[in-house]
């Protein structure tokens, strides 16, 4: 499998006080693979992806190399201008945010918001976009997608909104999806559903995935490779299964020990809802 | 923040300089040869110009309605009455009316119409209490179609003059009467005058057109547009903008003196000034705690530097007054003791009165400070400036004078109750001076009455004034006037400042801008355009 995204020596500095937030991080994401990024809050997991997508605060400077190979072109994400980046965002790299409820404009209908993504990125008409949105919702097994599209964000649950975000990402058919803590704000049932959807995405669509979470159980379930972050630096990087079985770094060990217990309820839920008989 | 502040200062500076730059600069002279309309701006609307009531603008009432007589050049002249005779006992006035005069609605002007009007006026006696004349009317008689007789209760000498006043003795068409009278209002404004009110939009404008069936010389201008502009600044700008052709104002109303001077200098406008019209004076309250002492009043008279006021504030535009009524006013050509500015005399008089100079520069007597208050109508900025001048004059001799500017009603309330030490006073002007003015001294609601209330001989004063009004012998009357005026003068109740003049400003090309005897009338009918 060829490499889709290769990041080398990524450094992010706060220009206001010259404070280095991300120190020298390197990793690679292959096509159709899933990279899990784990760490505690403030470890810099989200910051990495934001730097890559060029949506950090204006006073942060990113340095290093981030080669993105897509559709016959090779771009260095850190060096491209805003216009190019905008075209990449949403179309080739889609991102799913953590807090679904606040990710949508509260005074616009969900359907319209999903549709505008398609109108701008795929050059479709509004009508075509709404149809596409409906289909996308259907893809992730949402009942009565027509009704969902007509609703306002506050009328849907966090889980439902999260899945709308996923559906939007899916409909764009990107090369890479970045999911930033998609399950953190959800209850266990919803968590299970969302994770299943990601699995399906990986299997059916061949989309590469960067999955950021502090929930190790979920990460273990989905990831091929793993990147462990602490205080802005990469502590451990490699094959996910290996690391889980045999953590090298003391911090990784600590994480695994503490976090795994907390996800016990999740695992129970997984077993209950797992039709395919796959277990960790 | 610094940038914002700096920019703010810069912008303000630019704005200020632009104003100063723009303040100079005259407009070009306009070609008026084809103008048929005159645009006149006034701060007030004409309101209800019922000639028998007082709700409207006098100058507007004057345009539409005429009386039996008119006051011109200090004399009584014929108007709607061509001639008249007075009976020997002074009780009957027989008027021979002009023939062939009609109201603009076609109704005939005759003795019956005159009687109808006069009865309506007498029927509303209380409203006309300020004018003795109405009280004196005993009967209105129609002798024949063109002869009308007025019968009085007493031989009232100012009768002819008062019949010629702007109101109330003017005639409105009988068709306009409501329920046989005018005191409840009228349903039209039809008169015999040179102008007809053709349109009136409340508080915006009024249009007067030439009366084409006028019995006398028709007006030269076809239309007068009376525009209402409450703000004097706006009026000035409108004048400069060519929207207004004429400003005409009695005291305090319209053109302030600085603008007047500037307009004069610019040359695109002509400024006009009338003969002295009324007396501008300060009233001293003879009943108030400190000023009840005649020595104090005399002292104050010596303390006021009138030259400062005349030259500095009035820009020399008015003549200094040393007597309350000028010698040109009937019965006032008498010798009165006058006062010239003398600070030393003031100090001497105050010392004699027991007011000793305190350590803070203010005089004291029996533990009380010599502190008085001058009240004026705050809308009149000129009065305020004059007050400050007097304040300085008095401070120099140890009297502390506070200045109190109030809005009109509050000022008038104070006047009515006599709750003042010093107050600004303006006589009514020709042709009301001296009789109507002096007559009003008897009315308690007037500041003059209140100021005179502390005088020893106030009652005698009022009685003499009453006698004056009904004295038929001219010599006796003159003697009584002399007594009254001398007493008032020697009691130092008034500080005469100046004799006011009516001012007007018109665009060059407007000719015939003159002044009537009364400062409340505007003789539009005499004006015309000419290059």
């Amino acid at each position, binding site marked *: 499998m060829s490499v889709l995204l290769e990041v080398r020596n990524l450094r992010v500095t706060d220009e206001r006080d010259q404070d280095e937030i991300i120190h020298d991080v390197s990793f690679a994401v292959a096509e159709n693979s899933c990279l899990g990024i784990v760490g505690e809050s403030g470890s810099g997991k989200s910051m990495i992806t934001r730097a890559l997508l060029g949506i950090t605060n204006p006073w942060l400077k990113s340095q290093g190399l981030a080669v993105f190979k897509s559709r016959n072109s090779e771009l260095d994400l850190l060096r491209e201008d805003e216009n190019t980046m905008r075209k990449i965002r949403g179309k080739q790299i889609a991102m799913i945010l953590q807090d679904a409820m606040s990710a949508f404009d509260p005074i616009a209908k969900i359907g319209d918001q999903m549709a505008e993504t398609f109108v701008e990125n795929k050059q479709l008409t509004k009508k075509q976009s709404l149809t596409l949105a409906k289909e996308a919702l259907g893809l992730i097994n949402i009942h009565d997608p027509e009704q969902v599209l007509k609703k306002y964000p506050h009328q849907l649950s966090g889980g439902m909104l999260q899945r709308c*975000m996923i559906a939007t990402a899916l409909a764009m058919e990107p090369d890479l999806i970045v999911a930033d803590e998609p399950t953190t704000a959800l209850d266990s049932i919803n968590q299970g559903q969302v994770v299943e959807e990601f699995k399906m995405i990986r299997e059916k669509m061949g989309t590469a995935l960067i999955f950021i979470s502090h929930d190790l159980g979920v990460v273990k379930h989905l990831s091929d490779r793993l990147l462990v972050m602490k205080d802005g630096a990469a502590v451990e990087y490699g094959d996910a299964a290996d690391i889980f079985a045999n953590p090298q770094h003391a911090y990784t060990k600590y994480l695994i020990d503490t976090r795994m217990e907390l996800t016990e309820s999740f695992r129970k839920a997984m077993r209950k809802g797992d039709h395919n008989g796959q277990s960790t | 923040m610094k940038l914002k502040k700096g920019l703010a200062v810069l912008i303000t500076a630019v704005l200020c300089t632009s*104003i100063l730059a723009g303040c100079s600069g005259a407009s070009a002279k306009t070609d008026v040869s084809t103008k048929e309309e005159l645009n006149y701006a006034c701060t007030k609307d004409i309101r209800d110009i019922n000639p028998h009531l007082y709700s409207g603008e006098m100058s507007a009432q004057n345009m539409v309605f005429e009386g039996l007589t008119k006051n011109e050049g200090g004399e009584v002249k014929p108007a709607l009455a061509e001639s008249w005779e007075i009976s020997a006992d002074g009780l009957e006035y027989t008027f021979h009316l002009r023939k062939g005069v009609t109201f603009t609605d076609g109704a005939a002007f005759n003795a019956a119409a005159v009687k109808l009007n006069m009865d309506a006026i007498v029927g509303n006696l209380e409203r006309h209490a300020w004018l003795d004349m109405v009280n004196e009317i005993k009967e209105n008689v129609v002798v024949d179609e063109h002869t009308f007789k007025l019968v009085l209760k007493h031989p009232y000498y100012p009768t002819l003059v008062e019949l010629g006043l702007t109101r109330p003795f003017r005639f409105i068409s009988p068709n306009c009467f409501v329920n046989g009278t005018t005191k409840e209002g009228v349903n039209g404004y039809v008169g015999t005058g040179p102008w007809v009110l053709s349109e009136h939009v409340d508080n*915006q404008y009024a249009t007067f057109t030439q009366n084409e069936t006028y019995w006398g010389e028709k007006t030269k201008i076809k239309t007068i547009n009376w525009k209402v502009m*409450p703000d004097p600044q706006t009026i000035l700008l409108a004048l400069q903008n060519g929207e207004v052709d004429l400003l005409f104002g009695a005291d305090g109303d319209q053109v302030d003196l600085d603008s007047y001077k500037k307009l004069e200098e610019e040359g695109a406008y002509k400024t006009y000034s009338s003969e002295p019209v009324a007396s501008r004076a300060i009233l001293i309250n003879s009943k108030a705690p400190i000023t009840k002492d005649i020595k104090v009043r005399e002292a104050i008279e010596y303390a006021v530097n009138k030259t400062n006021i005349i030259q500095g504030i009035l820009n020399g535009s008015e003549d200094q007054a040393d007597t309350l009524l000028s010698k040109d006013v009937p019965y006032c050509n008498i010798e009165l003791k006058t006062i010239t500015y003398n600070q030393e005399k003031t100090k001497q008089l105050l010392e004699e009165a027991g007011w000793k100079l305190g350590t803070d520069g203010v005089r004291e007597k029996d533990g009380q400070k010599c502190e008085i208050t001058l009240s004026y109508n705050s809308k009149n900025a000129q009065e305020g400036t004059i007050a400050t001048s007097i304040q300085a004059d008095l401070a120099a001799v140890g009297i502390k004078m506070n200045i109190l500017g109030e809005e009109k009603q509050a000022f008038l309330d104070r006047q009515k109750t006599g709750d003042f030490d010093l107050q600004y006073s303006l006589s009514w002007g020709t042709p009301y001076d001296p009789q109507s003015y002096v007559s009003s001294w008897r009315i308690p*609601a007037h500041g003059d009455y209140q100021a005179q209330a502390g005088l020893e001989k106030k009652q005698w004063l009022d009685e003499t004034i009453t006698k004056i009004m009904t004295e038929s012998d001219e010599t006796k009357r003159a003697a009584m006037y002399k007594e009254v005026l001398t007493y008032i003068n020697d009691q130092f109740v008034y500080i005469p400042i100046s004799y006011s003049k009516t001012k007007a400003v018109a665009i060059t090309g407007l000719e015939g801008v003159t002044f009537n005897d009364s400062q409340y009338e505007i003789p539009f009918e005499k004006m015309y355009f000419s290059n």
Partner: protein
Amino acid sequence: MKNYIVKRLLWMIPILIGISFFAFVLINLSPSDPAEVAIRVNEITPTAENIAQMREQLGLDDPFMTRYLTWLSNALQGDFGNSYANNKPVGEEIAKALPPTLYLAGVSLLIIVVVSVGAGVLCAVKEDSITDKTMRAIVFVGTAIPGFWAGILLMWLFAVKLKWLPTSGMTTPVAVLLPAVTLSLGYIATYVRLIRNNMIHNKRENYVLYGRVRGLKEQTIMKHVFKNSLQTSLTALGMSIPKLIAGTVVIENIFAWPGIGRLCVTAIFNRDFPMIQAYVLIMAVLFVFCNLLVDLGSVWIDPRRRKEA
């Protein structure tokens, strides 16, 4: 929703009665005798006789509550009595003077909205840039200038010097521009800042990030931000309507605009009780009504609150 409206409308009645009573009390506390003032207003000398006659004519000798209740019952039937000054029906006078003021206030509101929104959005989009700072400085100066001075200044510039507009009066259709602009100056700064700050606040919301992440054009994202900002600003703008209507006095005086501002001030100087009373009542109705409309509007605009109500 319907219940809410009905309830609010019902509440209007006691509120308005209360206000009218309060106004009646205050006016009657004035030391001047309205009968006397009514006489003086027409340049007649008040004497004991004509004052007494006037008092009787105006019904001033009746007890306080009688006068108030008479006034109230008449008012409810649309009769606000006659002006003390010129004896014309107050209702008519106000009815004649209200449209010009509403027209003036309306045009001012339009100017305020257009300029505030335009400048506010511009400043928010170019946050902290030179454009932003300059715009705010200009707006600040514009508001700091006192209304009457600004009015005369504008009049001098546009009427006298440039001759584009008439100086005053409700003459041509464009004559409303100078007074409307002068009137709006004082409010523009507030609303520019309001909209700017609202938008800046909303710019930091998560949905802006999500919009960027989805590759939306900056313009599209700003539309969302704008709509959200407008919502809160609308309430404030709505409440400024009665303030505009009530605050035209100085402007009307300078520009010879025949509106109720002038009417009210003249009434106050003349102690014209019926006129003042009617004016207060009408203003109260306007305020309460606008309040209600604004509240309803703000609930309806926000889909989150619309469904609740």
